[in-house]
């Protein structure tokens, strides 16, 4: 195994997957390419049917790509059956063997690899310790709770020390509190084992909090790959902006562009500074996105100079923050999320004429 920190554990090279034949063909993946680095917590994020699970199953070997290459540390593993790939999976429903004990489940992979009995025993003990399940070694898997089953599934997949661990929505069956716990637990396990994790989820919050990098997928393609912050603050496409978090879309025209930044003139005449992808000329009509927490409701004199003006239609109190829905003059609803601190005790009343101030450097021009 190469030890350079930036080595690619997995390289997906223009992989396509077509299910069915003839008229009933469904293209689950369309020439997807992505590189996943060693020791990375990499998340495939997207709505159901976007192809994220298909991609995971191709890496695991349960399905074979219709086209393209899957490289594991430079070696094409696409034609190998799952039992010849040093890759293990944590299944969505855990898929623990019901006829085996917790310990037998964890030792199964090593036993199949033909490791000596003593080594298997030692490894099982170490794994039980890692997931804090030592007292339950001889229980049947039907006699332990969902959260414990989750830990056993993790230990079973980690025991053979795979080069890459695949996790298929492993937390979706847990309740909210346990899910939060397991998120932290997963990050700890990844740090302790140093194994590359590829995590599939449709839960954007889960993706943002846990991942080193995220690939956002939609209808068989990867739309954007980046860190949580990049994906959230600088969504490249409308789908990404819309799928992750709440977003306001505004139409405008590029007034001037330089060094990856643009001044965008909105319909109201106000000019907003925004990040700009390559290849946009001044004068072009564009859409910009502004996150609700990157804007502020202003009243009175300040409203006159604000980027947007409108009427406060609705204010929803959430405890830590308040969501304001403002009907913008000549446009749709704009949402502002404002923290409820003691300082900003100014209460805006529904029906007030207000302005919306957009924080500098927080808007992003979309590619499409």
């Amino acid at each position, binding site marked *: 195994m190469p030890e350079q920190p930036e080595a690619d554990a997995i390289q997906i090279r223009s992989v396509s997957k077509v299910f069915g034949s003839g008229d009933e063909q469904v293209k689950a993946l369309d020439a997807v390419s992505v590189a996943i680095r060693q020791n990375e917590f990499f998340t495939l994020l997207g709505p159901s049917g976007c192809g994220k699970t298909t991609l995971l199953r191709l890496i*695991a*070997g*349960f399905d074979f790509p219709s086209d393209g290459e899957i490289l594991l540390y430079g070696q094409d593993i696409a034609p190998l*059956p*799952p*039992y*010849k790939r040093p*890759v*293990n*999976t944590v*299944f969505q*429903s855990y*898929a*623990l*063997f*019901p*006829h085996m004990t917790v310990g037998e489940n964890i030792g*199964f*992979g090593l036993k*199949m*690899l033909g490791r000596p009995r003593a080594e298997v025993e030692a490894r099982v003990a170490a794994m039980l310790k890692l997931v804090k399940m030592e007292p339950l070694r001889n229980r*049947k898997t*039907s*006699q332990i709770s969902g959260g414990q089953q989750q830990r056993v599934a993790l230990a*079973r*997949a980690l025991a*053979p020390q795979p080069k890459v661990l695949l996790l298929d929505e492993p937390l979706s069956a847990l309740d909210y509190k346990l899910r939060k716990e397991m998120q932290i637990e997963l990050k700890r396990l990844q740090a302790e084992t140093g194994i590359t994790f590829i995590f599939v989820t449709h839960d954007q919050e889960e993706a943002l909090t846990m991942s080193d990098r995220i690939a956002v997928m939609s209808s068989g393609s990867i739309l954007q790959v980046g860190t949580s912050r990049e994906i959230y603050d600088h969504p490249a496409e409308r789908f990404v902006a819309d799928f992750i978090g709440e977003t306001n879309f505004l139409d405008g025209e590029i007034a001037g562009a330089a060094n990856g930044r643009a001044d965008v003139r909105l319909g109201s005449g106000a000019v907003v500074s925004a990040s700009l992808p390559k290849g946009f000329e001044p004068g072009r009509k564009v859409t910009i996105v502004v996150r609700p927490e990157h804007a502020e409701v202003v009243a009175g004199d300040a409203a006159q100079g604000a980027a947007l003006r409108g009427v406060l239609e609705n204010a929803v109190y959430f405890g830590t923050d308040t969501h304001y829905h403002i009907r913008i003059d000549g446009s749709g609803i704009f949402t502002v999320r404002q923290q409820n601190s003691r300082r900003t005790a100014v209460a805006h009343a529904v029906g007030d004429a207000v302005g919306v101030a957009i924080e500098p450097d927080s808007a992003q021009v979309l590619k499409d």
Partner: protein
Amino acid sequence: MSRARETEQAARRRDVRLRWLLCAPALVVLLLAASGPLLIVVTYSLLTPGNFGGVVWQFSLEGWFRVFFSRDIFDDTVGFAGAHLDIFWRSIRLALITTLITAILGFPTAWFIATRPPATRPIWLFLVTIPFWTNLVIRTFAIQEVIRNEGLINNLLRWAGIISSPIQMLYTDFAILVGMAYVFLPLMVLPLFASMEKLDFRLVEAGYDLYANRLRVLWHVILPLVKPGFIAGSILVFIPAIGAYVTPRILGGGRNLMLGNLIELQFGQGRNWPLGAALALTLLVIVVAALIFYVRTAMRDSGGQRG
């Protein structure tokens, strides 16, 4: 307060009475149809045979004695009833081999059906049950037609020039096994299918994922999980196979008796009803003992069912 309790108790008593009343028809049938005949058989096994069949009402252990021992007609010495013991052993052996054959043939058959798309499974199951539409005797004669010396297989082989004289298949143990495996196969396939249909195929994937190849997934994952189906199927096949009468009678000729034929013989030509009754009870004991042994062993290995 006490009035309420009395009312409640009366209601409970009424409930209990009603429950017994509702169970009564089933209980009567069970008593008359199961325990009754069994009692008659037990009684007959302890009586003296009549000269022209039937029994004489005189207590005797001769019937039971003759199940296991025989008396020499000249010097009256006692020896083991070798012929009977042979037939016991043969019946057990043939029933076991039949169970094994149906398991080996039934597993891929059931697997095939269980892995079809759900919409087409009923059609395959329906096809498996088609042999039940024809009478057992007729089906058995059909097998005879296929394997007899002038039958389909021998004629084909001779026509192809592979053999010059017919292979003797009819009236051998082979013929009995072919017949029983054919007749009892659906009884193995159906429970196997039922347990395979419940099989979570993600467990198979988990097996592959954890470095088990196809054979090992079959051995370590699939077989243990469909074991309840094997147990049910084996019981359904073994019990009728060990007491089979029609198949060994038609395909085994007169030479290859099984327990069913031996018992029939005592009530017919043998005119020894007590011996027949004792043999029937011996068969019952063999079956029950085999079942207890089998289920115990099977359950101990799989464990989960009993927690």
